[in-house]
């Protein structure tokens, strides 16, 4: 009985493909999102709004906070309060920060909302959880390597690695090599 390596190659390619389909979508979608981080924030939707209140005239810290909250109609207790300088008061709430310019009453309201699903995908892609996820990501990387290798040997004949496959694989090799040469020497 001969070992039918191509049959096993194809079975491996198929089953690993099923196993990593979800992760490939996560890494692929997040890759697109993170790749353009210079143009947009892939994790959060940050909205800035300016509002105007009367200038804050109180002098003590607690009084300033109380007056600002009253003028802004903020009933809830802030998570925290900070004064980066004498003229500014920051009130922190969940997902929202009020930066009050005390002498003018100009207020910057910054709301931060995570881009649900994409945020989680990016966290996994960038290995924010660390710990066990590092090993899952390693396994995924090994699976991708095995997909590339088994993929090349799935078919025989004209469309296999000795025919059309050789040309396409060569193009795939040339893309990073040529780009790297261009990047290094141009």
């Amino acid at each position, binding site marked *: 009985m001969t070992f039918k390596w191509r049959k096993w190659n194809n079975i491996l390619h198929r089953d690993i493909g099923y196993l990593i389909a979800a992760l490939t979508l996560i890494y692929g979608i997040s890759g697109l999102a993170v790749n353009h981080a210079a143009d947009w*924030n892939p994790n*959060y939707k*940050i909205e800035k709004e300016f509002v105007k209140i009367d200038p804050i005239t109180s002098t003590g810290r607690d009084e300033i906070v109380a007056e600002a909250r009253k003028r802004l109609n903020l009933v809830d207790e802030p*998570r*925290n309060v900070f004064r980066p300088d004498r003229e500014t008061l920051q009130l922190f709430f969940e997902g929202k920060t009020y930066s009050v310019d005390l002498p003018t009453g100009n207020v910057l309201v910054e709301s*931060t909302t995570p881009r649900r699903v994409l945020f989680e995908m990016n966290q996994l892609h960038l290995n924010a959880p660390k710990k066990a996820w590092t090993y899952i990501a390693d396994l995924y990387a090994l699976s991708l390597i095995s997909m590339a290798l088994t993929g090349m040997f799935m078919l025989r004949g004209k469309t296999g690695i000795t025919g059309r496959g050789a040309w396409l694989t060569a193009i795939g090799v040339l893309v990073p090599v040529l780009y790297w040469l261009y990047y290094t020497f141009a």
Partner: protein
Amino acid sequence: MKIKFSLFALALLIATLAFAGEEKNYGTDISLKEKTAIADILASPELYNGKQVLVEGPVVDVCPERGCWIKIGSNKEFESIRLKVDDGEIIFPMDAKGKNVLAEGTVSVKTISKEDQIKQGEHYAKEEGTTFDPSTVKGPKTIIQIKGMGAVIK
């Protein structure tokens, strides 16, 4: 099947909500026991340069792009210190803003040139989505920050 899936989704939601309010660890575990006041570091940076410290305070700002730094409010008014981590080493969430953090790291005191300050100012402004006026930079400046290793946000 549908019921099983709904129960699973519900359990997942409950677990998520249960963990949502808890403190969260980032990076390496905290090893120091004694805290150093941020005001002390800022008052005498040369004493702390290169030393490992444990600081505590409110998170008053977070790098919105990569979560690679946080600003921690000092125990003294109008002061804060930046805790910077290597990109990808720790990713601080924006949701940390306003929460309290206990963070450990090494104090770094550097004097940076006018040109580097402008570059850094422009970089941070881009990250924060604000603008930076280079004319505000008058000359070399001493930058005091903490290279973060671990943090607990609660």
